[in-house]
């Protein structure tokens, strides 16, 4: 690289960093104060883009940008007042579920309002051309962005340090209970923070339209970038977010400049994993007080009541008899349900009793699935053997990744699991020789005696029911108690001789193994396996299932998986805007049953 191109790539990095910072800053603010992991933050950004493009045609670009930001900020306020306010006290991660539902709804709303075609916005009037910098051309508009990022940083800094509002925000970020005790009007504070965060997201989106068309895929791209930046920077730290945005944007620009463009697929996740392993609280994050709202109190485990036990036995019997009376498809669907039930239960195993948050559980599902495919196709093992051995690969993966993950807690832990999952995903995506690359592996079919839908259903029923029962057993075993002991009071647990980390590590590995069983079964049920099996959406699906069912019981995950799989299937078939339909259904459940479906079952039993 010549000096000129180094300089220009550096400027490119700065411009990208500014864009990234705007979204990340809002997300960080919101998380810092409300502890809500706002999954819909990318959707707010997307709305900012659409509004800005739409408004540009009417009032001109420069008016459209602040207007779009304000509209999105206002929408954010409505979301906070109408939805989030109701569920702050619900169990941890429930807000994640609610904002995930919002993401689905906003995506379909944008499709409905603006249509399917990407909308390329106008160039910024007055800054449409390029300037010459050291022999290369550089867009004028990008220079504006380069200035704007630090300006917003300074503005936020002043807002947070020089105003009373800022003081309250900082107090709430550092110690929520304390701020509450100081008589801070939390409701108003939360609303205003959420609105400001949304406004920043909308501003980020609106400012992006001269560089990128408004399109329906941007929400997910942006949210994952923003999460990474917020976590690398340190949760709740605005300067940290700025630093992280700079770091990641520069690393990306130079990956491209130096000819390693393929690395951009995961490089931010590699950076995040490295940062978290070295600095468990991100670059500038501080030891935050562990949020223990009322929702964080864990209820005691209850043994299965005789009535529930009988109901489960009846359900099992019904499942066993089902193939006699089905049209074949029910078996296919139920096979999916069983597999996802096991997947969700395995996620619950670490989420519930250990409170190890994982946003990357799909990694182990995917490892199991790929191992099954590779053992079967490449190593030419018999299907039965491939199926039996594949989960070990997932368990091994969990053993390795888990060692790092259990060293962190809360969202940091979650993001490290996500980073590892993305790294595994990109390996599957790019390792053509072994994994078939982006197309994946095809021709992964069960042995002849298991090939019929009925037999495969029985196989899945046997394997999943057994594995779930064993997980249940494990939760109620001394090991499960040790796990919950470490969750309830790490201090006491350690003083009683319990190695909390080792226990969590073992749990993580067991969960990985169980997810691997689900993955291997999945591979043979579909006949093929592709990188999606370990993508972020699959991890999110797992979380959604667990939260729908209720975080407090393992069996809840099973109901959650059944409901979510059925919802997806039924909605996609019967409703045009099926994503929004799923989103609305989730919201209804979140509001009516904040503790999950399991509460329904328990009330009856």
């Amino acid at each position, binding site marked *: 690289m010549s000096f000129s191109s180094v300089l220009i790539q550096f400027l490119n990095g700065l411009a990208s960093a500014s864009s990234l910072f705007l979204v990340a800053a809002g997300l960080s603010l919101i998380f810092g104060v409300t502890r809500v992991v706002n999954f819909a933050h990318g959707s707010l950004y997307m709305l900012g883009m659409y509004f800005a493009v739409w408004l540009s045609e009417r009032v001109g670009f420069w008016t459209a940008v602040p207007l779009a930001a304000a509209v999105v900020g206002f929408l954010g306020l409505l979301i906070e007042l109408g939805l989030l306010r109701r569920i702050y006290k619900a169990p941890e991660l429930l807000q994640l579920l609610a904002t995930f539902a919002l993401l689905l709804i906003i995506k379909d709303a944008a499709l409905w309002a603006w249509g399917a075609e990407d909308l390329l916005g106008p160039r910024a009037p007055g800054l449409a051309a390029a300037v010459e910098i050291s022999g290369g051309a550089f867009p004028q508009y990008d220079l504006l962005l380069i200035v704007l990022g630090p300006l917003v940083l300074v503005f936020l800094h002043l807002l947070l340090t020089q105003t009373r509002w800022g003081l309250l925000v900082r107090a709430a970020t550092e110690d929520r209970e304390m701020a509450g005790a100081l008589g801070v009007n939390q409701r108003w504070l939360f609303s205003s923070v959420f609105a400001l965060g949304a406004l920043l997201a909308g501003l980020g989106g609106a400012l992006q339209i001269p560089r990128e068309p408004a399109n329906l895929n941007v929400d997910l791209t942006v949210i994952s970038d923003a999460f990474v930046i917020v976590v690398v920077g340190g949760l709740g730290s605005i300067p940290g977010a700025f630093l992280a945005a700079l770091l990641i944007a520069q690393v990306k620009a130079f990956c491209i400049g130096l000819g390693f463009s393929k690395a951009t697929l995961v490089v931010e996740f590699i950076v995040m994993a490295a940062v978290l392993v070295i600095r468990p609280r991100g670059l500038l994050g501080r030891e935050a007080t562990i949020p223990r709202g009322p929702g964080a109190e864990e*209820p005691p485990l209850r043994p299965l009541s005789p009535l529930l036990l009988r109901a489960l036995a009846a359900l099992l019997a019904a499942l066993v008899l089902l193939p006699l009376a089905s049209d074949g498809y029910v078996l296919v669907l139920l096979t999916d349900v069983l597999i996802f039930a096991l997947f969700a239960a395995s996620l619950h195993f670490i989420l519930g009793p250990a409170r190890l948050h994982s946003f990357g559980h799909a990694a182990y599902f995917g490892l199991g699935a790929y191992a099954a495919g590779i053992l079967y196709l490449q190593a030419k093992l018999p299907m039965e053997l491939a199926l039996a051995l594949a989960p070990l690969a997932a368990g091994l993966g969990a053993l390795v990744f888990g060692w790092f993950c259990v060293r962190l807690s809360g969202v940091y832990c979650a993001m490290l699991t996500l980073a590892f999952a993305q790294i595994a995903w990109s390996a599957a995506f790019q390792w053509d020789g072994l994994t078939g690359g982006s197309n994946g592996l095809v021709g992964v079919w069960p042995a002849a005696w298991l090939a019929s839908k009925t037999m495969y259903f029985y196989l899945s029923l046997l394997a999943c029911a057994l594995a779930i029962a064993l997980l249940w057993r494990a939760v109620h075993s001394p090991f499960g*108690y040790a796990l919950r002991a470490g969750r309830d009071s790490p201090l*006491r647990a350690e003083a009683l001789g*319990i190695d909390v980390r080792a226990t969590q590590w073992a749990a993580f590995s067991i969960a990985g193994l169980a997810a691997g069983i689900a993955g291997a079964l999945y591979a043979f049920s579909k006949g093929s396996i592709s990188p999606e099996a370990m993508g972020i959406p699959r991890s999110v699906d797992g979380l959604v299932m667990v939260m729908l069912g209720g975080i407090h019981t393992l069996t809840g995950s099973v109901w959650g998986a059944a409901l979510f799989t059925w919802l997806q299937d039924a909605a996609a078939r019967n409703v045009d805007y099926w994503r929004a339909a799923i989103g609305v259904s989730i919201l209804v459940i979140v509001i009516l049953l904040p503790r999950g479906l399991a509460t329904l079952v328990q009330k009856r039993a």
Partner: protein
Amino acid sequence: MTVLQVRNLHKSFGGVRAVADVSFSVAAGELLALIGPNGAGKTTCFNLVNGQLAPDSGSIDLQGKNLVGKPPREIYRNGVGRTFQLTATFGSMSVRENLQVALLSHARKLGSVVSSLEQQTHAEADNLLQQIGMQAQAERPCAELAYGDLKRVELAMALASQPRLLLMDEPTAGMAAAERTELMQLAADLARNSRIAVLFTEHDMEVVFRHADRVLVLCEGALIAQGTPAEVRASALVRQVYLGDADLEPGHA
């Protein structure tokens, strides 16, 4: 026989000298009280002994074995049980389950993934419950208990491992006067009968002077006096730096 021997212990937090050059020892069967005003460094001493914190310098020996640098769980395995000033129990479990976990941990049986909480520990747990007088509350989740009851549960959990050294950080906080005496009597009996060394902190002077064999007085991290309750009560220095007035008479907490 000396169970715990602490020599020249130092610990600072930033500029705050929490523990400065503290040396003392506790013998088997002895009840040693560690007293001092708020922020004197009592809890920090406990945290250093039990491995929660690492000392800046100094040595801690448990029956000749060096404890410095070991994590709490290992120190526990060497026979140190403790209670916390701010109680720490497993809120999602019942009182009995809390004790069962403690018992199973002591028996190194917490690794089992398939068995259920054993019947045997059930009985042992009830035995402990009886000692602390909480049989009636066995099934209640710890999250629902009153503060004084939690203190009791903590004591029982610490005892589950049959420790050689018991550290009790304000064991009677949140209890009525009669309960305090009862609890300390229990601790004293245990110390005498099972030859446990007991180190405890306490703000209630009546409890201290009535039950302690010896008293250590800590002020701003430094040991300013030690001796029998009578000696400490008589010490002018203690009166001056610790309380500043004549509040060391029994009955004035």
